């Protein structure tokens, strides 16, 4: 088994890519830990705790720059935190074997994002639903890559909330941020621009992870010698990822996202099949 310094060094690029793609880091970390021989439930629990650091690190700069929509994040936080508590509780009770296949299947849903959203879409013309209007969820930000201000409205807030409950459920169950699923819900249901979706997703993941971590603390699955280096490494990576995101084009981010998710699905299916 590797030592803490090697784990710390491995997790730096993981944090960077997690922040750039909106995956949140743990979607990459959990399969990586399983590959390195860590039991899957322990990997999930430690992944969940370490993404609080990853997401908080990158969200700090997104929020300051005004890209993440704090109101949308708070509203959706109601649904994701409730889902995460239920998901983490399920994980402590089911067979580890199932978790490999759930993980791969859940990652596969993230491809919906790249199929359904136009590659260079930067504006949103959706008409706000009554709940979004009542909660004043609309917003805007300055896009450095396009050198212009992007204003947007929010639609289907309650339906989006239902989608975020499922995202929270998967996040708590698999020890990940479920960033890709959250981004899919925000882009396709709430009609948020891609960068607002990615950054707001990062912001929500912190709340989701906190809810899930409390369940894993009770279950005794949090290993200090894993969590320490993972949190330090992924946060350093996420710090740099947060600074690079607004300078990259959406097409580049999507290509990176596609490659990484494909690799992770194959790895988890392989691990699941070989454990049968």
């Amino acid at each position, binding site marked *: 088994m590797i*030592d803490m310094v090697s784990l710390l060094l491995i997790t730096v690029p993981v944090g960077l890519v997690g922040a750039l793609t909106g995956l949140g880091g743990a979607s990459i970390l959990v399969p990586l830990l399983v590959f390195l021989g860590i039991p899957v439930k322990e990997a999930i629990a430690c992944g969940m705790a370490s993404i609080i650091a990853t997401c908080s690190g990158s969200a700090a700069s997104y929020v300051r720059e005004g890209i993440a929509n704090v109101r949308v994040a708070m509203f959706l936080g109601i649904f994701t935190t409730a889902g995460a508590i239920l998901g983490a509780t399920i994980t402590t009770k089911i067979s580890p074997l199932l978790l490999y296949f759930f993980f791969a299947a859940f990652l596969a849903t993230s491809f919906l994002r790249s199929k359904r959203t136009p590659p260079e879409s930067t504006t949103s013309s959706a008409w706000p639903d009554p709940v979004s209007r009542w909660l004043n969820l609309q917003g805007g930000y300055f896009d450095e890559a396009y050198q212009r201000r992007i204003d947007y409205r929010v639609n289907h807030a309650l339906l989006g909330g239902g989608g975020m409950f499922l995202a929270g459920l998967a996040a708590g169950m698999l020890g990940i941020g479920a960033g890709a699923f959250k981004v899919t819900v925000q882009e396709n249901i709430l009609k948020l621009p891609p960068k607002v979706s990615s950054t707001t997703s990062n912001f929500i993941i912190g709340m989701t992870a906190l809810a899930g971590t409390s369940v894993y603390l009770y279950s005794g699955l949090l290993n*200090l010698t894993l969590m320490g280096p993972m949190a330090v490494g992924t946060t350093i990576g996420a710090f740099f990822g947060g600074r690079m995101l607004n300078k990259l084009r959406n097409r580049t981010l999507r290509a990176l996202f596609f490659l990484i998710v494909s690799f992770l699905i194959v790895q988890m299916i392989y691990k699941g099949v070989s454990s049968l």
Partner: protein
Amino acid sequence: MISSHQNQKGSKLEVGISYVLASGVVASLVLMGAGILLFYWEFGNLAISEKKGMFLQEKNFFYFLYDLLWGGNFHGKALWTMTLGIVVLILTPYAWVVMSVLYFLKEKDFKFFLVTLLVSLILTLSLATH
């Protein structure tokens, strides 16, 4: 017309949350980094361990916090420091949610006061009942 006052760069809530997030993460990373160094000092290696003493477990987070600060159940400075880093990390999102509740109350934005209050209640219950 789109009103975007809540998303302008540098609004009070956003700057406040940003500071809480950044300082919480930096503090927890410093503690965990120091814990790793102390671990090497105390144990003479940096191996990832599956021993029972390396796993955190408690009835709920608030008992866990009490144990950490006043219980004296942790053996050695390395594990105590790493655990404190984890605790600071867990408290970081909790702190900005609580801060948002107070901010919306101060701004008399009662819709979002209720939204943030509900989120903070879910998180508090989760920390207290697991």
